């Protein structure tokens, strides 16, 4: 059976993706950075670096530090802003026939809504992924993603501003992630994706200073996979909407664990840095597994965990 005979497609709200392998925001630039490594049109979708209303210069360096089987980043959401994104980045992605999901971030509910409105109806944009791990500036800097009410408010506002499918990207830095997922589902989210990075820190014992200028940063990579997988499993059992699994996925085996746990699709993050071809390798590996297990559709696998 050739890969093309397999049904790898998955649905995220009204959107059908050709396969479940997506790129994680912030680890794949605006797509073009990977043009010599990956066939962008083969991917389920390219989720681009988080976009804000105004351009952001991000945090001062150092911004990244390696940890055991992982890395911390405090990029600080550096991005070109929505205007330049639409003017400079979308043409290329359209030309490559990539399915584009735009990851957005804001300081207030209103900013999220405004951004969603600006993206609505733009040719080539298939969906919006909402990063709610950002501080709510109006609410004393508590992250939207740690409070079910604020998360629901963002979801409602974004849904009200766009006809595009809306994916809410959940923060893992919470007591009960299933509760968060249910809150955004009730508020109209078409899907949830998780996890964003775990908040972490590293110290240089020589200088006795934080290794990141921002002091704390987001932990990603294989180190966090067990936590991510547990959360995906918990959320998949709690909501009816599709779940996109993220966190430490570096191989097809990793991706398969998330699908079996209940994820309809997955996003590959940090692994892109180490193996720029990771997304295609993972896609091929999922196909091979389905064949070896005599499955014809990836949906047979989704949530197939026998507990």
């Amino acid at each position: 059976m050739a890969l093309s005979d397999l049904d790898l497609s998955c649905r995220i709200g009204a959107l059908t993706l050709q396969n479940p392998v997506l790129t994680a925001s912030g680890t794949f630039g605006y797509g073009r950075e990977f043009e010599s490594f990956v066939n962008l049109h083969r991917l389920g979708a390219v989720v681009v670096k988080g976009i804000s209303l105004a351009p952001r210069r991000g945090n001062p360096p150092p911004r990244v530090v390696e940890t055991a089987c992982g890395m911390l980043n405090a990029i600080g959401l550096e991005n070109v802003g929505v205007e330049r994104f639409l003017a400079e980045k979308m043409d290329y992605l359209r030309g490559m026939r990539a399915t584009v999901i735009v990851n957005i971030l804001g300081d207030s509910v209103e900013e999220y809504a405004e951004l969603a409105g600006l993206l609505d109806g733009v040719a080539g944009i298939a969906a919006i992924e909402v990063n709610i791990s950002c501080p709510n500036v109006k609410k004393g800097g508590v992250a939207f993603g740690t409070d079910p009410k604020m998360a629901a408010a963002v979801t409602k506002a974004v849904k009200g501003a766009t006809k595009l499918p809306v994916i809410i990207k959940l923060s893992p830095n919470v007591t009960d992630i299933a509760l968060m997922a249910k809150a955004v589902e009730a508020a109209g989210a078409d899907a949830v994706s998780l996890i964003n990075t775990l908040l972490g820190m590293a110290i240089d014992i020589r200088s006795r200073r934080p290794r990141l200028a921002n002091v704390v940063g987001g932990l990603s990579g294989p180190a966090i996979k067990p936590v991510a997988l547990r959360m995906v499993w918990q959320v998949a059992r709690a909501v009816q909407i599709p779940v996109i699994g993220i966190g430490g996925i570096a191989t097809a085996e990793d991706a398969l664990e998330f699908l079996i746990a209940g994820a309809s699709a997955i996003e590959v993050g940090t692994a892109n840095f180490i193996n720029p071809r990771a997304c295609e390798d993972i896609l091929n590996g999922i196909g091979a597994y389905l064949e070896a297990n005599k499955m014809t559709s990836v949906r047979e696998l989704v949530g197939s965990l026998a507990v």
Partner: protein
Amino acid sequence: MAPMQLKAEILRRETLAPDLIRLTFLAPDLAAAARPGQFLMLRAGAVRDPLLRRPLSIHQITTSGWVQVLFKVVGQGTRLLAALAPGQTLDVVGPLGNHFALKSGGNLCLIGGGMGIAPLYFLARELQRRNPPERVVPLLGARTAKELRPLADDFVALGLEPRLATDDGTLGHHGLVIDHLSELLVSGKPWHIYTCGPYPMMRAVVKLCREQGWHCQVSLETMMACGISACLGCAIPAAQLDGPYKHVCKDGPVFGAEEVAWL
């Protein structure tokens, strides 16, 4: 030239000094594309710890498709690279970043400290092709003779006359490589400077260049997660401090000294 991802066969591993390794591997397409100043992101094998690739400058290429890197073993990543034996494969992404602008004519001076010498050798060869050897002056410094001699010899073999300095005085001038700069000053000529090495050394070089009005190209290092302009981790402050950051893997590693902040 778009970067590629490839598995290259190790042809040779040389231990030039304790913990100073030169790896030669076969990568014809890479060799054909590489320019002096560019770097590679390397991985010894599919280990998850350390997680990230390691950036190393391109030290030398040959027309037969050989590529060399020269590095110091400082931690686990370089230790794994140093353990590769001929016949094993090296996982390579590159060539990455911009490159030195190759001048033809004028008085050219290459100032390298420690492992900063690695990319300067490739540069020296390309400059030496375009310029009379006496117009290409390498100033090379390292901690000690053991480290510096093998590197210096390569420059001599190119027909150049490197001025040397070691921290412990075991080879060349006993002191800093930048002490040699006074010779350039004395010459009264305008110089075009290329430099790569420890930050304090480069800052001193840049200061002098600014005073003298000399043009100066610097090759910078920073922590890098990807090397391919995807993570935005390699930010450094630009000369205009409140402007957008520069990204070493994309806007660099080579910068005009005036482009970046010297803090």
